[in-house]
């Protein structure tokens, strides 16, 4: 059972990583134009400045 001492923090840490990633996507406006992003990958122009 001692393994729990490592495993619980590891599982929490992974979950937390996901949470932080989600906050980052919200902060960087990645949900503002989902349709546009889906279509932009079809264009061969590089999208250097996704923020605006």
């Amino acid at each position, binding site marked *: *059972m001692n393994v*729990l001492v490592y495993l*619980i923090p590891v*599982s*929490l840490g992974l*979950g*937390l990583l*996901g*949470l932080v990633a*989600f*906050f980052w996507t*919200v902060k960087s406006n990645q949900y*503002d*134009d*989902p*349709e*546009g992003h889906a*279509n*932009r*990958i*079809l*264009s061969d*122009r590089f999208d250097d400045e996704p923020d*605006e």
Partner: protein
Amino acid sequence: MSDTSLAVCPACVAMPKGETALGVARSDSLRRVELSLPTIHCAACISGVESGLGNLEEVKGARVNLTQKRVAITVEDIPGIEHRLIELLTNWGYPARELDSAVLEKTRNDQHGRDLLARLAVAGFAAMNVMLLSVSVWSGATDATRDLMHWVSAAIALPTVAFAGMPFFKNAWSALRVGRLNMDVPISLALILASGVSLLETMEGGEHAYFDAALSLTFFLLIGRYLDYRTRIAARSAAVELAALEVHRATRVLPDGSHETVPMDAVREGDLIAVAAGSRVPVDGTVVDGRSELDPSMLTGETMPEAVGEGAHVIAGMMNLTGPLVIRAEGIGEETLLTQITRLVEAAEVSKNKYTSLAEKAAKIYAPLVHILAAAAFLFWGFWSSDWRLAINIAAAVLIITCPCALGLAVPAVLTAASGRLFRNGVLLKEGVALERLAEVDTIVFDKTGTLTTGHPRLTNADQVDPDDLAIAKALAMGSAHPLSKAIVAASAGIGVATITDHSEEPGMGSRAMWNGQDVKLGRAAWVGTDDTPTQTTAWLKIGDRVIALTFEDDLRPEAAAAIRSLHGAGYQLQLLSGDAEAPVRHAADALDIPVWHAAKTPAEKVAILDALKADGHKVLMVGDGLNDAAALASAHVSMSPSTAVDASRTSADLILVSNDLREVADSLRLAKASKRRILENFSIAATYNLIAVPIALLGFATPLMAALAMSGSSIMVSLNAMRLGRQK
């Protein structure tokens, strides 16, 4: 994006080339311009617009948002640049319309939505992790291992409940402070009690901890809140976009004779304002120069144009038809027609009974019942067993089990599904409860001008006029922007054009020319020299000494007859309520088979008629578009406006027909009834589940595992039931 739309996209293939400058004076300062591009839909459209605009020297940056179908352009601050950009985009095959950036700015900073989303994410994260820990407890962890799991759960759950539950605590507190109960009071109590009791149990090394239940409760309820909020914000931003399409500007004439374009609120009393033919009068005022005809239909519902000349009083909102006018702005902040109507709207909104939504009704029954049950369980078990720890545990279990998880999702899930489906059909729902009110409607009152009719006149007696005479009328009418002239040209499509010379147009009067050595005129009665007073819209054609009347009628919308028939078939009582004169109203009512009609009503009389219907116990749906309907729209039980309606009416209306298709009225009514049924079904699902679970909790047999299963089960059932609405044909 669909394949069929790809195939018909005319501009996607050809990349706009060539233009590198707009040919206007340059400027150093930058400005942000937003344009609506309703037709863009694919990857090629994005690169077409962005690279096309990027090639322009004046444009510093352009970014397309495909979801909202807009482009944001950073451009040098040059007067009139928007119009050049719109022209250019339209030439490339993307019809563009200007959006008012100031109006859009209000919805851009969506602080509340992000806040709610953050709480939802934290609650979701914590619920998953604690559930994971709880699973090991349920599967048989004991002693030190169980205590460890509980302690870790507590460390995650307590801060999360404090953070994520904040919206509920705040609402509950503001209700309690004024001595009222709302749905958030039992929610908050359950959250606090469950966390507190579980913490005590953990300290004592007890068996049952409800941390997972408290967290999943928070998570599910926040989903409901977030859906609710999203529905409202989606409708609001769509409504804002409609408002932003109307850019409120006026053209001011400066003392040196030059013109400048200024925003409406910069106009002061006494300013001279130029009104071009084909645009709306921006402010009330007096004509100081020019002659024209004004179309008052948006204001009063009357379809007969009004001739104005120097010294005439004009009212904001009228459409200038023929000649350019210069008016002196006056009556700003005084008794204008608009302020009178605004006052009527406000009065109607105040007198409107506050509608109790289904969710509020459910909360009213539910909240006291839960508290009484929990308190009774606590006292009974406390006195009967003298074990107060057991008693508080059971009371917490009762609160958790009965907690309105399913109730909290029941209404928002249905409204989200329903408003999504309405939106796809081209109907904008501004407020969720309007859908519930729509389901109760038994009487529908229509406005005529602009709602049942197109607002464009049609020549009615073309077959009684000699084709040769009509050919002269056509020749005189050609090239004119006047709606009656356009109607003449449209009605005489199969007829040749007579040869006329010396053609000249006299603003506000008509046009004249020479034909075969004779003087020919087309225009107003007084101008051609006849004193007939017609009952309907008429233009007069004078050939030599002969005078021929050309009568017009406001054309019914092509789908109006079918829409009215389906509403008749569904058993609704229909009425026509118009500000127009009696003859055209009677004619429209006959053509559409509407039994009850009222003509020549002022805005106040319209409200009075609706109030009388209300007093008879009818629930009225008002459909209207003009400024004269705004007050009636506000006083009706529920109201609809086409998106072509004036600002004031769109603001008053609960639903907006973005597609401008009257058949959506019947469809929306059907959907509203289905939604109400679905909400009631959801309530009974939640109630059934409570009927089974509550006795178990009261008897003290409830475990955290049961609470978790029951809560998730009922919430998922309610959401699935709601989602059926979105797909139903």
